[in-house]
């Protein structure tokens, strides 16, 4: 039937509205596919479809009139969605839902169906009005994005697992290497101790003992290195406290007291050995055996940029200090230079105070 004659069909609707009605004209000519069904007839058949509906579905008007809308459904239409539509119709409710529909040529499209009842003055449902919209592109796009997201999430999970395994392996390797270093340091210490025993000359024994004490300081550094949660940093404060406590315990002066004021300070791990050796060298000088020690004071603080370690001694009796051995002075100078640190000495007959100031990060590095 010629499309231009379709206005005749408004007669079939038994509507109170007639020819020339602007609302009917709108429904007929709109680009949005629309259909009207009559629930008064058995199985709620279609009684009107506009041109847009015919274009969308590929069916002519004659092929649509008298059929229930379900003729557009097919094998892949979701029965759950269909059931929702049926329930809405039975209850006389509105419903908006996406349904997979089939055209006459068998191809499918996603139909954004909007169904609403048209009630008469008595409140009873006289017609159902349905608009259709081809939203295939939107639905497929959503599915594609969801699929892609799932894939990306999957890849991210795999990659994260890989990185975690790698980190674990590197951490194990670090600890393994560290373990070997500690064992090697142990052997070096043992060799020195044996050498000291075998040496008869006091001069030789003294020299070896100084070396042994420096190696012991390195050992103390390595015991603490890489033990923290963040292996990039070394806790200098606890190292210094231990170093001084051990020196106090080993001292021949039994009544030696230690007074300490220590703030937790950390240094990048690569500076640990130099800083530890520097502080140890200063300590060795303050604890030389000819000095009758009464008390030791330790101060360790950081202002964020510089760590300050001050070790002070008080003597039992006035004692002039001896010149520092050349090797000690050289070690202190070189280690301080390497760390861009400085060591200030305040020597009196009653005791000595040494302050070591170490920058936390290199003065040349960018902060």
């Amino acid at each position: 039937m010629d499309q231009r004659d379709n206005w005749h069909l408004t007669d079939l609707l038994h509507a109170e509205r007639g020819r020339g009605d602007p609302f009917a004209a709108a429904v007929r000519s709109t680009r949005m596919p629309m259909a009207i069904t009559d629930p008064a007839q058995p199985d709620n058949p279609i009684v009107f479809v506009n041109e847009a509906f015919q274009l969308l579905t590929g069916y002519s008007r004659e092929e649509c009139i008298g059929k229930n809308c379900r003729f557009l459904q097919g094998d892949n239409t979701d029965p759950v969605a269909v059931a929702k539509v049926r329930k809405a119709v039975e209850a006389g409710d509105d419903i908006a839902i996406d349904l997979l529909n089939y055209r006459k040529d068998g191809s499918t499209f996603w139909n954004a169906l909007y169904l609403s009842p048209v009630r008469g003055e008595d409140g009873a449902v006289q017609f159902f009005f349905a608009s259709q919209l081809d939203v295939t592109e939107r639905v497929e796009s959503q599915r594609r994005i969801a699929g892609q997201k799932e894939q990306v999430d999957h890849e991210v999970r795999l990659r994260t697992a890989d990185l975690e395994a790698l980190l674990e392996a590197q951490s194990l390797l670090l600890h393994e290497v560290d373990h070997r270093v500690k064992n090697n340091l142990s052997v070096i210490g043992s060799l020195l101790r044996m050498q000291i025993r075998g040496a008869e000359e006091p001069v030789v024994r003294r020299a070896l003992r100084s070396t042994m004490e420096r190696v012991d300081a390195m050992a103390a550094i390595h015991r603490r290195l890489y033990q923290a949660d963040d292996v990039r940093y070394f806790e200098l404060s606890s190292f210094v406290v231990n170093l001084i406590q051990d020196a106090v315990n080993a001292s021949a002066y039994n009544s030696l007291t230690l007074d300490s004021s220590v703030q937790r300070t950390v240094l990048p791990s690569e500076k640990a050995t130099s800083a530890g050796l520097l502080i140890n060298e200063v300590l060795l000088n303050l604890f030389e055996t000819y000095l009758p020690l009464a008390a030791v004071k330790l101060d360790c603080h950081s202002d964020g940029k510089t760590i300050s370690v001050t070790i002070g001694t008080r003597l039992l009796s006035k004692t002039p200090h001896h010149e520092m051995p050349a090797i000690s002075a050289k070690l202190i100078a070189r280690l301080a230079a390497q760390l861009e640190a400085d060591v200030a000495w305040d020597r009196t007959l009653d005791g000595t105070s040494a302050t070591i100031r170490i920058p936390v990060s290199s003065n040349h590095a960018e902060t």
Partner: protein
Amino acid sequence: MQRPKPPLNILIVEDEPLIAMDLEMMVEDAGHSVVAEATSLYDAEELNDDLQPHLAFVDIQLALDTSGLDVSQLIQKRWPRTIIVFVTANPKIIPDDFAGAHGVMPKPLSRSGFLSAMKYIQEGVCDPPPTVQQPNSFTASPAFAATWNK
């Protein structure tokens, strides 16, 4: 309970010969004696039952792929009164309960560290409780303090 008097009889379980020598010398410097040495679990198994060491220093990584943790279990079975101290570069792998042992000395050792630890342990074995403070070189397990009351 009869407490031993120094010199204590000490067993050293360590596979690095130089470290074992070093430990032996430091033990003697502290006034005690080394009654036996073992480098692996198999060595330890072959030790005589009569040995009854008062104290055993046990490294964790031993020869022939054996572990000090197993040696510690062996010692606890054969000589339940022996005080067991792990001497290791890797204190982190020791379980929280020390697997029944009494303490750990982290490597590398220093001479002063070993001597102050030895003093503390000796007091705990011969004349508990120790009067000196627990030194940094030695971490006791609760099992050690538990022996002081017996």
